[in-house]
């Protein structure tokens, strides 16, 4: 089969034949690299770059590059985390609605923080964070679990084994917990942006149901510490 080795262009690609053929494929040739959208990385002069960055630049000059997706842009307003969160909130491909909910959430956060800011006494005014993007990022970081549990079947019984998580998985779990929490545990009349902004502010201060869920997971992992040796990877 010529499939994996016809894609063996370029020395960086390990000519490795997978044991099991993957079903997930993409329309791009595997030699295509990811695009770099931020303007600042192109304005860095040559002297400041390290060895690795120079090699990266040389490689990029030779290999073709994938097209930038429609959610990514070089403007200051596009943030990859926010886009990921919007995509996860989206239902049946209604990106317009998801995007508007997200912007309403950020607006609601800003309003609440500004209210708090104007009511606070002089010495506390500096501690109150008003930037909704900073609050969003910090809240997500606070919600990320450090360790996860995975079901491993051994000798007929299924055990919950503590397992390290990759960065992507941590971010995904944090976002998923936030969204499920906001969809299920709210009063019938409250709208999504209001509830989401409430949850994000609580998570920013390390309170709230999502943080509790993270702590519960950590406690379970601590309790099942004995089975950690079941993991083989």
């Amino acid at each position, binding site marked *: 089969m010529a499939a994996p080795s016809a894609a063996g262009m370029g020395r960086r690609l390990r000519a490795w034949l997978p044991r099991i053929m993957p079903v997930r494929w993409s329309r791009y040739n595997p030699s295509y690299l990811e695009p770099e959208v931020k303007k600042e990385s192109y304005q860095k002069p040559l002297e400041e770059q390290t060895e690795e960055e120079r090699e990266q630049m*040389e490689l990029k000059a030779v290999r073709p590059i994938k097209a930038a997706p429609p959610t990514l*842009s070089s403007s200051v307003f596009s943030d990859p985390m926010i886009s990921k969160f919007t995509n996860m909130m989206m239902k049946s491909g209604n990106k317009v609605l998801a995007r508007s909910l997200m912007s309403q959430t950020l607006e609601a956060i800003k309003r609440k923080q500004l209210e708090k800011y104007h009511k606070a006494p002089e010495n506390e005014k500096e501690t109150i964070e008003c930037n909704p993007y900073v609050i969003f990022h910090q809240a997500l970081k606070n919600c990320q679990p450090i360790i996860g549990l995975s079901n491993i079947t051994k000798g007929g019984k299924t055990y919950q084994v503590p397992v390290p998580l990759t960065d992507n998985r941590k971010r995904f779990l944090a976002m998923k917990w936030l969204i499920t929490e906001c969809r299920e545990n709210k009063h019938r009349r409250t709208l999504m942006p209001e509830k989401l902004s409430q949850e994000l502010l609580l998570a920013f201060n390390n309170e709230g149901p999502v943080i509790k869920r993270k702590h519960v997971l950590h406690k379970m992992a601590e309790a099942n510490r004995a089975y950690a040796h079941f993991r083989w990877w």
Partner: protein
Amino acid sequence: TLRLICTTTAVQRKNVGASGPEKYTEAFIKKQIEEFNLGKRHLANMMGEDPETFTQEDIDRAIAYLFPSGLFDKQARPVMKHPTEIFPEQRKIQWGEDGRPFHFLFYTGKQSYYSLMHETYEKLLNVQKHQDQLIAQDLPLQKEKRNLAGSRWLTKIELEEMLLEKVSDDDYSRFIQLLQKLVALPCADIEEKYIQKFCKEVPAQLKTVVIEPLQYDERGVAFSTGEGKRKTASATAVVYDNGTGKITVNGTDILHYFPVLQDREQLLFPFQFLGRIGKHDMVCTVSGGGRSAQAGAIRLASAKALRSFVTEKEVEFMRQAGLLTVDPRVKERKKPGQEGPRRKFTWKKR
């Protein structure tokens, strides 16, 4: 199985040289070449041309004139070419008259591949010995880095052509791993000539595309056009210089045509990346596709048009930001026996 969507013609061309030992003897090929040369001189005489300066193109034209054929398949029409082009290069018979094979690895089945592996490993051992000698004499090891980005290894097809026998994927990957191991050693410069046989130069991606020069309209304003496609939408954009940043799509302003913020952000992306937001005017026409596809098509068209206004370095930056690549993603087809491209029918137990 892995579906190969993006192929080159090289992949689809069958490697006839590797299909087995030769079916034509050497004497037969020699005779064919003599007959071809004789026939060429006769043809030149017939056409009234000089036999010495009768090129292949003249032969093709003469044959097309003498034997006109209405067949659709070009390869079925009468052809007169040099025998080396018609009878593909194949391996000669590998054994002598007594039936004894010439090569000592003949009975492995892949004699050229294994002999190649043996040779490369010998070079590796050589380099290691040289390294040990240098260490014994306390001399510093040479550490000049080869130019990694400018060259690539031979593909499997090219290797098959070189060895004139079939190479499997596993074998090919093992060979490449061995070559990488050889190159990774510090004193690999000794065997540079041997390694060069398996390297190919890759030109920088930028050189493959031609940037068109600016055009000037009646009022003296510089403008340039670009075309873009995305999914089923196709767009043409005309970018004018000395503008105020007004963008018109199909006769209407972008604020009316694209009510969604994301699409407008995409339209402005190339301009914002180059820092030329208020400096250009744009007039575009777009048809087909949906709202997002049309925005992507216009983005590609405007990026292509902006190439003429901008230095080569900035064109390279635009390419690395993914603005100049055509997005190949299209809707996946529905398969029979499934409800959609991936979704299967509901599984019912009975």
